[in-house]
C-alpha cells in the first residue's frame, strides 16, 4: 500500500515536472488545428532548433543597434505580446520617437505583408527596416554582420544553425524569421472554446454574436484580421500619416492601414496605428460615434447610411467580455520565447 502511494506520488511528480517543461521544450513549428495554412515559405527556411535559438539570441541582442542599446525585444516586449507597452509610438535609439505604434509579433506565418502599411511583403526582409531606421536601431546591415562575425559566440551558433560559420545577410534574416515564426499564439480562451475544451459565459457569448455581426468582416476569425488595408475613419494625425498610400501611391489607399489582429488585446494597448487610444473603451467609443466620413471610408463602416458601429453601453460590455477571451497568457509567459 505504502509502495503504491509512493509510486503514485512519483508519477504525479513526474507529470508536474513534465508539465513545467512543456512550454520550454522546442518542438518545431506546428500549425494549430484551428488555423488556416500559413503563407510563409517554410521550404526556403525550414525551422530548426539551432536556427530558432540563434534567432532568439539575435532578437534580444542590443549589439544589433548602432550604439548597443536597442534590441528587437526593446520595442517588442513579450509580456505585452511583443509590443511596446505604454508607448503610443515606438521609442527607439537616442530617445527618438517613431511615427507608428509598435505592432505585435505573433502568428506572423499567416501574414502576407508586414508593417501598418504593408510595405514589406516578406518576413525575411522585415528586420532590415528597424535595424537600419535611424530612429529605431540606427545601424547598417554591414555593421551588424561585422559585429556578429567578430563576436566569440555567433560564428559557432551560425555553424550549428546553417552548417558553416559563415555569417551573411540571408542567414541573419532567416534566423530572425525562425524565432518570429515560432511566436504562435493559439492558447486563448477563444481557442479553447473553438476546440470544444471550454465554453463562453453568457456575456462572452452575447459579445461573440455582436462581434460576428459588426467586427468579423475585417477582424476575420481565427486570426482576427483579414490582412487587408482599410480606412476606418480616424482623423489624420499631426504628421498626416497616409498609411498604405505611401506604398501604392493610389488615391484610394489614402489613410488606409492594415487591419490589426485583436488577439492579446489586453496586453497590446495603446491602440490604432499611432496608439491614439489608450483603452479598449476608447476604441469602442470611437467606432460608436467618432468615425469620420471621408471618400475612402470602408463600406463596412457606412451601413444603411449610418457612419460607424452603434453600440449601447451593455453591448460594449459584452463585446469587451468577448474580446478578453482572445488573451493568451500562455503565449506571453512562454519561456521558450523569452530572453535566456
Amino acid at each position: 500500500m505504502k509502495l503504491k502511494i509512493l509510486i503514485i506520488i512519483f508519477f504525479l511528480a513526474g507529470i508536474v515536472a513534465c508539465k513545467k517543461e512543456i512550454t520550454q521544450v522546442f518542438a518545431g513549428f506546428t500549425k494549430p488545428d484551428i488555423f488556416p495554412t500559413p503563407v510563409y515559405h517554410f521550404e526556403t527556411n525550414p525551422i530548426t532548433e539551432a536556427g530558432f535559438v540563434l534567432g532568439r539570441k539575435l532578437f534580444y541582442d542590443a549589439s544589433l543597434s548602432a550604439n548597443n542599446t536597442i534590441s528587437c525585444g526593446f520595442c517588442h516586449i513579450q509580456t505585452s505580446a511583443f509590443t511596446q507597452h505604454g508607448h503610443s509610438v515606438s521609442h527607439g535609439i537616442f530617445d527618438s520617437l517613431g511615427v507608428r505604434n509598435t505592432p505585435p509579433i505573433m502568428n506572423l506565418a499567416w501574414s502576407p505583408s508586414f508593417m501598418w502599411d504593408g510595405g514589406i511583403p516578406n518576413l525575411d526582409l522585415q528586420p532590415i527596416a528597424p535595424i537600419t531606421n535611424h530612429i529605431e536601431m540606427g545601424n547598417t546591415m554591414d555593421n551588424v554582420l561585422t559585429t556578429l562575425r567578430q563576436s566569440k559566440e555567433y560564428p559557432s551558433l551560425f555553424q550549428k544553425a546553417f552548417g558553416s560559420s559563415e555569417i551573411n545577410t540571408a542567414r541573419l534574416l532567416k534566423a530572425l524569421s525562425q524565432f518570429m515564426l515560432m511566436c504562435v499564439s493559439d492558447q486563448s480562451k477563444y481557442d479553447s472554446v473553438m476546440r470544444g475544451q471550454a465554453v463562453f459565459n453568457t456575456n462572452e457569448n452575447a459579445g461573440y454574436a455582436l462581434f460576428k455581426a459588426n467586427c468579423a468582416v475585417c477582424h476575420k476569425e481565427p486570426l482576427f484580421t483579414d490582412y487587408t488595408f482599410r480606412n476606418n475613419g480616424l482623423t489624420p494625425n499631426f504628421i498626416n500619416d497616409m498609411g498604405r498610400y505611401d506604398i501604392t501611391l493610389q488615391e484610394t489607399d489614402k489613410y488606409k492601414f492594415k487591419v490589426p489582429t485583436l488577439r492579446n488585446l489586453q496586453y497590446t494597448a495603446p491602440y490604432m496605428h499611432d496608439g491614439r487610444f489608450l483603452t479598449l473603451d476608447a476604441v469602442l467609443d470611437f467606432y460608436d460615434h467618432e468615425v469620420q466620413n471621408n471618400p475612402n471610408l470602408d463600406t463596412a463602416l457606412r451601413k444603411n447610411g449610418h457612419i460607424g458601429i452603434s453600440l449601447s453601453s451593455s453591448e460594449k460590455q459584452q463585446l469587451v467580455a468577448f474580446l478578453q477571451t482572445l488573451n493568451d497568457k500562455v503565449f506571453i509567459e512562454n519561456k521558450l520565447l523569452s530572453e535566456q
Partner: protein
Amino acid sequence: MKYTFLSLIVLVIFFTSCKKDITPEYNSSATGQLSVEFDNVVGNQDLQLNTGVYTNASGETFKLTLLKYFVSNFILTKTDGTTYIVPQDSCYFLIDESSPNTTIPKLRVPEGEYSKLSFVLGVDSLRNTVDISKRTGVLDPAGTAAGMYWSWNSGYIFFKMEGTSPVSTQNGNIFQYHIGLFGGYTAPTINNLKTITLDLTARGTAKIKATKSANIHLLVDIMKVFNGTTNISIAKNSVVMVSPFSATIANNYVNMFSHNHTEN
C-alpha cells in the same frame, strides 16, 4: 598616269585585305569578353562629382555629389538576328560614378558580331521579390546595395542622384532623386523599370572572339534627367523619391544613353 594606275591597284589590294580582316570566323561555342562602358557626362562636359557646375534647361545651376544606378538583364543581338541573353545571375551591376571600376561591367558572351544591345535600368521585379538568399553581390542590402534599397517599402532604388543647387530650398541647398518602384508586390504601383535598346550598327558593332575582347562605349548624359519630355526644375522638385513624380524623371532618364563607339 601609270603611277596613278599603280596606286589604284595598291589601294584596291589594301581594301580587299582589310575586308578580309573584318570578317573573321566565329566559333559560337567559344566565349569572349564584352565590356560595356557607362561613361557619365553632363551635356557636352565630362561629369565631375562635387566640382563640376552645370546648368539645366530651367536655367538652374547645379553640382552632383552622388550618382549610382543599377543596370541588369543584358541582351545582345548578333548581325544575323540571333540573340544572346546574358545569364541573369551574373547580370546585375551597380554603376557608381565615385568608383570608376564599377562603370565598365564585363560580360562573357559567345563569339560573334553584335549589332544591338539592350539592358534594364534598374532591378527587375522578379529579383525585387526573390528570396533573400538570392540577393548577393551588388544586390546584398548589407553590401553594395546599402543605400540602394528601401527597407520600408521593400525594393531597390534603381537610380540615385544627389547634388546641390542654389535654387533648392532644402537644408544645404541639396536635391535628391531616388527613383525605384518595380510595379508592386502585394498591390500594383508605378513601374519605373526601363529597358534601353541601342543599335550599334552606325557607330560600330562589337566583334567578340575568345582571344579578342570588345568594349561598347556608351555616353550617359545626366543632363537628360532634367531636360526631356518634361523639363525638371530643381526649385520645384528638389526631393523626389516614392512619389508619382518619380515616373516623370524615369521617363526622362530613359533617353540618357547613347552609343558613342565600340573598341574592338
